[in-house]
């Protein structure tokens, strides 16, 4: 979760068009979101890069499999965080 919050700090600073709240329920993707698809792509890539820096593991979060799940792992910060956890465990 901290990784995501760090990224959001940078993100809010870099992109003045968006202001994402640092709460587990902040919607990232799907109905009620404030990010457009371009903003979302930038956020996810930034999270991937940060994860790579911190864990040394190269993860592609947004792939076809994740995108086609019934319950999107990208819906909120909390679901994204869980998803990252499970992906990291899968890899180790």
């Amino acid at each position, binding site marked *: 979760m901290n990784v995501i919050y760090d990224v959001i700090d940078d993100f809010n600073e*870099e992109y003045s068009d968006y202001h994402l709240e640092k709460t587990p329920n902040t919607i990232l993707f799907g109905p009620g979101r404030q990010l457009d*698809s*371009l903003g*979302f*792509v*930038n956020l*996810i*890539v930034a999270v991937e*890069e940060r994860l790579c820096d911190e864990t040394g593991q190269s993860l592609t979060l*947004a*792939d*076809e499999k*994740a*995108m086609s799940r019934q319950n999107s792992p990208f819906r909120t910060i909390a679901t994204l965080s869980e998803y990252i956890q499970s992906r990291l465990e899968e890899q180790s």
Partner: protein
Amino acid sequence: MMIDFLLNNFERYKKEDAVVWRDKVYSYEWLLNRVRHYQTEIQTRNIAPGDVVVLEADFSPNAIAVLLALIDHRSIVVPLTKTVISKKAEFFSIAKPEYVLAVDSDDQISLSRLPYDPEYPFYNVLREKKHPGLVLFSSGSTGESKAVVHDFVSILNKYKKPRKSLRAVTFLLYDHIGGINTLFYLLANGGCVITVQDRNPDTVLSTIERYRVELLPTSPTFLNLILLSEAYQNFDLSSLKRITYGTEPMPESTLKRLHAVFPDVDILQTYGLSEVGILSSKSKSSDSLWMKVGGEGFQTRIVDGILHIKAESSMLGYLNAPSPFTEDGWFNTEDAVEQDGEYIRILGRTSELINVGGQKVYPAEVESVIQQMENVVEVSVFGENNPITGQIVCARVTPRVEQEEKEFIKGIKKYCRSHMESFKVPVKVLLTRDKQYSARFKKQRLTSTSHS
């Protein structure tokens, strides 16, 4: 007979400089005698007209003379330079040469016979017409190289009309349509072929100074290197009248800087492809990317934003690929263009187009912006697949001096956001210390991956 118009010129210009090679000047009289020498030599070696001859060489006095003698002998010539040495076996197995003429670094020629007996319909067309041929390998970025077969007679026809006589550096390569074009332009007009042993900025610029070069035909990548190194400040380049650039899109920022550094030099864009030859072109001005293309023997049309060309000097076809021509002879260049009346502007290869959520991004326009930044030596932009937007824009940047990575990347994205629409801004910026161009001084982009 094939090259009479050239040899008559050589006779006329016999006291003039024809070739400069390794600080030695060779006159047209020398060249004429040398062509005659090789004409006899080819006869005595029993090379038959229509035989396929690889000419392993670079621009040198004997390489030029023997090329002319082979054309006159109606050989099918396959020029190869050292830059494609790693592909030699592949090229041989495609072109199936009967002979190899190798010109070594001392300009000495050796001949060897290969056990091929090539039967290709296009070779037979040339043999039946008793015309010399030219085989060039197109430097395709993906897959097998394509062997382009030309009738040398239709290439030579272009040079029969007298044009301005110039002294030029042979920057473009001997086995490339651009290099062939420079060579015949110069020989047909009594110009001087000034060769260089390597293509470093200092070598090329010192050659311009020493031999009072008037024309530099080159690529945007090389011009960018000259500007960045500021090597131009160390040489007297006052002889330079014309710089031509082609082979890849010119970043607008590079062109503007070039014009500011060389305000009295005509800076002109050239346009051509191995498959159709070099078109006549006229840039709107020295600092404009808009140009008129066409000229005698060429027709152009734009279909769905893509340039198509019909040319008298078109190749016969590929040896190893199906015909790319439409039934009525048009060739799809796969170059996307913008049109404004008579003028066009090249946007980039359709294969390099990046599709971000349905919106088009051409690498060159993003590169042009990033290139303006202080600490950027080189940049190449490419697409990467992404399930959300189809593709995302990525940039690979070579910094001039070491800088804190994160800050530098942040700075690049910020600069891009203030200079272009948001979908064009690179989502990923990677830093590299490698050079990002080929032996032809052409930018090497990672191939865009498309989403189907």
